[in-house]
Structures are given as structure tokens and as C-alpha cells.
């Protein structure tokens, strides 16, 4: 097991160097090969795992549990078989006492598959172990004793035991729902097919096709995506340059009471964003808002598409600049002063120093944060939902308004219109875009480089 991996074939990495009788025994019954290798404790360990799975399957099947007269055959399957059946068929019987609930079947199916994957891992490991231990015994005549195995097991499983609860919760609350969310994209789960009244069906790539062939969907998709990208770019750059500008101004040598100004200017960052956004949605109210009252005009800040988009950017500027200002202030003050002095000696002007020295250094340092900020703005649900709620309405769009981002469009489709399948298709799009950006960004960080 510890020999060089380079010269091994792919299957040798999986089942060990050579298939032996021990491996074959373990292939059929987990732990049997270990017994042949005279590793009783290890054999019991693997056998126990298999035993638990089989017992669980039997206990949940009609062999043990009560059979209600007239129930469909599948209702008597054990947990794993029923799970696989359910996720494949999404249910067969509708109405009455024995109606299948497709969403529930999908969730049970996903849980069954995840548990079976864990089983598969142990099963393969059990074959590989049986093979390798036997081969090593033939070579060296030495075997690991049960005590040694138990010590090793304890040492190795320490990490798993600590993170076990967190991992199980992650599987159930995080991974399973996301997988479910993605699978919905391939079903007809929408406002016209709601569970448990209806059964769902797999529809393949039908929903993806709809996005590119139905004019209304296509228009909405393209329109919303374009706006989302422009919004994320503009929102990130305005707050970045705004923050940089403010940091330079506040840290200027002519400014007295720097702490005072800085404290005032970070207030928007400190106020909870949702409150600020709700307050601004009233502040910019066309008829009653204080701004229009003050100006004595009736500017449709949130009621006309272009105005609403501009207002959104202005409010985001108000909310986002302080963060970048604080960040840049920190970076600017930690700058190496000798660079400036050297440049000054060489006769550079202040402007030149800024654009040729300060800015490039700052930019490379903040780049990862800029990318993070872009990703955040891309999915900035709160800004849109609380300020404009996606409005004003766009009659050419399917379930979206002029200022809706992809993320708020998904929200509306899920919560208000129950178009789960199309929402899920859009989630794929978001995942592709944000996933690529995040991986690119993250692969440059120190934490990542140390690990991979």
C-alpha cells in the first residue's frame, strides 16, 4: 500500500495490486477476506458495516413492517430499494390513500444514494485491503495484529469522529438540498404540476431548451443576465473607486480630525443593510418621499426603468463605499514610504506616483476582494428585493421586472410563482458563472496554494 503509485494501473489503485482469493471473498461478503487473512477485528469491522446496511434494508421492508392491504408493491420495498425506485420513477400511483409524493421520493432517493456511496467506499476499501494484506503476507510473512488494527483505527478515525456530526448535517442540510435543487431542472415541477396532488416526471433537457427557444423566456433570460452582469460590474467599480477616492481624501495631510471624518463616513457600513435599503425605498418614494418633497419635483426614482437602475447603483454606492474606504485606508497607511521618496528623488510628480506606483500595488492587493465583491453583487438579492422588488414591471419578461437580477428572478419563480424547474435551470447558470469566478479567485489565495 505504501509502494510508489506511479507505475500502478488505474484498477490497481482501486482494488489493490492483484486480485487474490482474500479479495474475492471480501467482494462477496465484506470482512470474509480479512477473516481468511486472520485479521479478526478488521473482518468484524467490515462485516459489521455490511450487517448494519442489510439489517436496515430488511427492517424497513415489508418483510418486517406491517403490510397495509392493497398497498402498491413498491411501498413494501426496503429503504434503499425504495429510494432508488423512487428517484428513478418519481412515483407511480396518484390519488387515494397510497398516492406517491414525488418530491419526498426524490429526497429519500438522494439520501439513499449518498448512504450507498458511503457503503461503496467501504466495500472497495475492504477488497483492496484484503488483497494487499494477503500479498504483503506472502512477501514478508507478517500480519498486523488485531490490537495494532484497533490502535490504527482509533488514530485514523479521530478526525472523522470530531467532524462526523458536522459532516452528517452538511450532507442533509446543505448537499442534499442543493442536489435536489439541481435535479429539479430536469423535471416538470412547476405551478401546473405541484406535489403531492400530481406526480412529477423527468423531462431531460426540456427546460433548458425552453430557455433558448421560447421567445419570452429567451428575452427574459438575456435581458436579466445582461443587467445582472452590468450591475455587478458597475456596482463593484463605483464602490471600489469611490472608496479609494475617499481613503485618499481622508488620509490627506491637509485633513484635520481624521478619526472624526472616518467615523462619520463608515456609518453606512455599520447600519444593517436591510434597514438602510427599506429606509431608502421610502426616501425615494415618488409621491411621498422626502427627497421629491425637498426638490419640489416628482422624479420617478424607483418607478421608471432607467431611473430605478440608477437609484439602485446610487444606494449601493452609499452602502458599499465605506467598506472599500476602510480597506484602502488600511492598505495606504501600511505602504512602504521609501518607494515614494525614491520616486520623488527621480523627479516624479504626485499624480505620476499615484498612477504608476500606488495604484498598481493597491490594485493587485485588492484584486481578490474585488472579485469577491463582484460575486457578492452578482447575487445581491437584498439590494434589489428591498429597494425595488425587481420593479418596475416589464411586460415582455416572464416573472421578472426591469431591475431584477438572476438571483431575485429565481426567488420570485420559487416563492411567488412556484416555477421550481425554471428557477433550477437558472441556478445552473448562476453556479457556472459564480463557480468559475470563485474557483479562479480562490486558486490564487494562500490558503488554497498551501493545500493543493
Amino acid at each position, binding site marked *: 500500500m505504501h509502494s510508489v503509485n506511479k507505475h500502478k494501473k488505474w484498477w490497481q489503485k482501486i482494488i489493490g495490486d492483484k486480485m487474490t482469493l482474500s479479495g474475492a471473498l471480501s467482494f462477496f461478503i465484506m470482512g470474509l477476506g480479512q477473516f481468511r487473512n486472520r485479521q479478526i477485528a478488521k473482518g468484524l469491522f467490515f462485516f459489521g458495516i455490511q450487517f448494519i446496511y442489510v439489517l436496515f434494508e430488511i427492517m424497513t421492508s415489508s418483510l418486517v413492517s406491517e403490510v397495509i392491504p392493497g398497498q402498491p408493491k413498491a411501498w413494501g420495498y426496503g429503504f434503499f430499494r425504495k429510494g432508488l425506485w423512487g428517484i428513478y420513477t418519481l412515483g407511480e400511483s396518484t390519488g387515494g390513500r397510497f398516492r406517491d409524493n414525488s418530491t419526498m421520493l426524490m429526497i429519500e432517493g438522494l439520501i439513499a444514494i449518498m448512504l450507498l456511496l458511503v457503503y461503496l467506499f467501504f466495500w472497495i476499501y475492504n477488497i483492496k485491503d484484503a488483497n494487499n494484506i494477503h500479498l504483503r503476507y506472502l512477501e514478508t510473512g507478517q500480519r498486523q495484529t488485531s490490537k495494532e488494527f484497533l490502535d490504527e483505527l482509533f488514530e485514523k478515525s479521530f478526525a472523522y469522529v*470530531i467532524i462526523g456530526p458536522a459532516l452528517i448535517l452538511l450532507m442533509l442540510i446543505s448537499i442534499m438540498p*442543493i442536489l435536489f435543487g439541481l435535479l429539479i431542472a430536469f423535471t416538470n415541477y412547476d405551478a401546473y404540476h405541484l406535489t403531492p396532488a400530481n406526480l412529477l416526471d423527468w423531462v431531460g433537457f426540456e427546460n433548458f431548451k425552453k430557455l433558448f427557444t421560447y421567445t419570452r423566456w429567451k428575452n427574459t433570460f438575456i435581458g436579466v443576465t445582461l443587467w445582472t452582469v452590468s450591475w455587478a460590474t458597475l456596482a463593484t467599480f463605483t464602490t471600489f473607486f469611490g472608496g479609494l477616492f475617499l481613503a485618499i481624501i481622508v488620509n490627506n495631510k491637509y485633513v484635520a480630525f481624521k478619526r472624526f471624518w472616518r467615523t462619520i*463616513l*463608515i*456609518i453606512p457600513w455599520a447600519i444593517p*443593510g*436591510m434597514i438602510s435599503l427599506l429606509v431608502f425605498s*421610502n426616501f425615494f418614494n415618488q409621491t411621498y418621499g422626502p427627497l421629491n418633497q425637498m426638490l419640489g419635483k416628482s422624479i420617478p426614482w424607483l418607478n421608471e426603468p432607467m431611473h430605478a437602475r440608477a437609484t439602485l447603483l446610487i444606494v449601493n454606492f452609499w452602502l458599499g463605499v465605506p467598506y472599500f474606504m476602510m480597506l484602502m485606508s488600511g492598505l495606504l497607511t501600511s505602504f512602504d514610504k521609501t518607494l515614494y521618496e525614491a520616486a520623488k528623488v527621480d523627479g516624479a510628480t504626485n499624480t505620476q506616483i499615484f498612477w504608476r506606483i500606488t495604484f498598481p500595488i493597491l490594485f493587485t492587493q485588492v484584486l481578490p476582494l474585488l472579485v469577491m465583491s463582484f460575486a457578492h453583487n452578482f447575487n445581491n438579492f437584498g439590494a434589489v428585493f428591498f429597494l425595488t422588488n425587481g420593479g418596475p414591471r416589464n411586460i415582455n419578461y416572464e416573472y421578472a421586472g426591469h431591475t431584477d437580477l438572476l438571483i431575485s428572478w429565481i426567488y420570485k419563480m420559487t416563492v411567488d410563482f412556484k416555477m421550481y424547474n425554471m428557477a433550477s435551470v437558472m441556478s445552473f447558470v448562476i453556479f457556472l458563472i459564480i463557480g468559475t469566478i470563485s474557483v479562479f479567485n480562490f486558486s490564487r489565495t494562500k490558503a488554497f496554494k498551501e493545500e493543493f
Partner: protein
Amino acid sequence: MAVQLKRKPKESNKTYLLRLLSIIAIYLILIILSVAVIYPVIWIVGSSFNEGTSLASSRAIPKNFTLDNYIRLFQKTKYKTWYLNTLKIAVVNMIASVFLSGTMGYVFARLKFAGKKFGLMSILILQMFPTFMGMVAIYVLFLNFGLLDKPLALVLIYAVGQIPYNTWLIKGYLNNVPKSLDEAAYVDGATKFQTFTKIILPIMSPILTFVAITQFMAPWFDFILPNYLISSDEKRTLAVGLYRLINGQQNNNFTMFAAGSVLVAAPITILYIFLQKFLVEGLTAGANKE
């Protein structure tokens, strides 16, 4: 640092004038921006002391100062219940998160085990999904486990949903601490558990504090999940309660909403201003670049 307005010796008329002008420009900008920052704040605080209920009649400086809105807030709405619900969620979420994320971060930073890289990669991908993408499944799951309309069940989603991000954050922080520290403890005969409690835990405390603060804050203004999973008024959280108070009700409830906002935002704003340096450092720790 005093601002030098007087003309410096050997300074030409032109440069002196330019200097004066830029000083004026800088202060002008600062004053304008400060007004832009502070005016909405004054307006909402002022509105909460206004007479009347509507958006149209509320003024930044109230004509007749009154505490009516605050009194009505507690009598007419379930504000106090919302506040307590959220506080409960926040406290439990803070404890659960520190425990779950802390152990994950420690294990991934310090222990060697099979599947570590796979695990790190998976949680990296996981943190890219917005929580509500899995919302429908969570709804069905909660429905079947009888967890719908239970405020504390939200903690499950908050605490677990943040594990991926926090794990990377804590791991990144611990990677900057030399491993020789815990190795020395092993050499002295300490067990893994002792090393963890006596050496690692004290080292981790700043980043755990950061996690605790952010996780305590998260439930106060999360809207999507509680809005979707909680239906009865007396179980709502503050964010949902406040949103429903104002949404489409600007004429009846605006000043009451202002009062509610001030009550919840004031402590948080003050806390953030005091903790600004600490919080910004925590935010940037995740993006620690070489």
C-alpha cells in the same frame, strides 16, 4: 496635525493659491459626503419621533416630538416577540456555529486524514451556492420532520450553511500559526485533546470571536429563509416582521417602522463602529493572498 493655511516661505503665488483651493475642495467634498451619509439617518430617527403615521407627513425634525410610535410598536405589533425570537436564534446559532465550524476548521488545518483534499474542495464548491437554492428541499424536509414554523430550526440552516465558509476562514487563520507549537506539546506528552484545549483554542480565539459575532448578527437581517419557513406572526423574526410592517403600508405604519428600525439598528451600528478594525481584519483574512 494642524492645517497650514498660511503661506509658506518661498512659496509662489500660484502654488499657494492652488494649495488653498485644494484644501477648500477637500473639505467641501467631506462636508457634502457627510451630509449625504447623515441626512437619511437623521430623517429616519426623526421620523420615529413624528406625530402621525404616514410617510408623507413625517419630517427629519419633528414638529411635535412624541414617543407614540415606540409605544404603539410594542402595543400593536408583536415587536417584542420578534425581537426575543431573533435573539434566541442568534445566541443558539452563535454557539452552534463556533462549535461546528471551530472543530471543522481545526481538523482541516491540523490533522491528516484520507479524503481531506476532497473534503476541502467539496466545501469550497458548496459555499458558492446561495442558501435558498436548496430551499424547496429544505421545506419538504422540514415539513416531514415537523420543523416548519419552528424558529429554532432555522439555526440548523444558518449554522450548517456557514460551515463551508467558516471552515476555510478558520483553516486559513490556523495555517499562519506555526505547527511547531502543537508539536512541542505532543513531545511533552500532551494528548490531542489537551493540545487542542490548552494550545490551539487560545490561539484560535480571535477568529472564533469573529465567527461568533458574524453568526450572532446573521439571523437579525436574514429575510428569505424565515419568510419561507415560518408562517405564524408570533414566531416571526425581526427582519420578516419589520418588512411586513412597511411593505405596502407606508401610509399607516411608516413612523412605527421607523421606530422599530431605530431600536434594532442603533445597538448594532454602535457595536460595528466600535469593532470596525477587528471586523475588517476578519473579512479580509479569508482572502489572504501571497
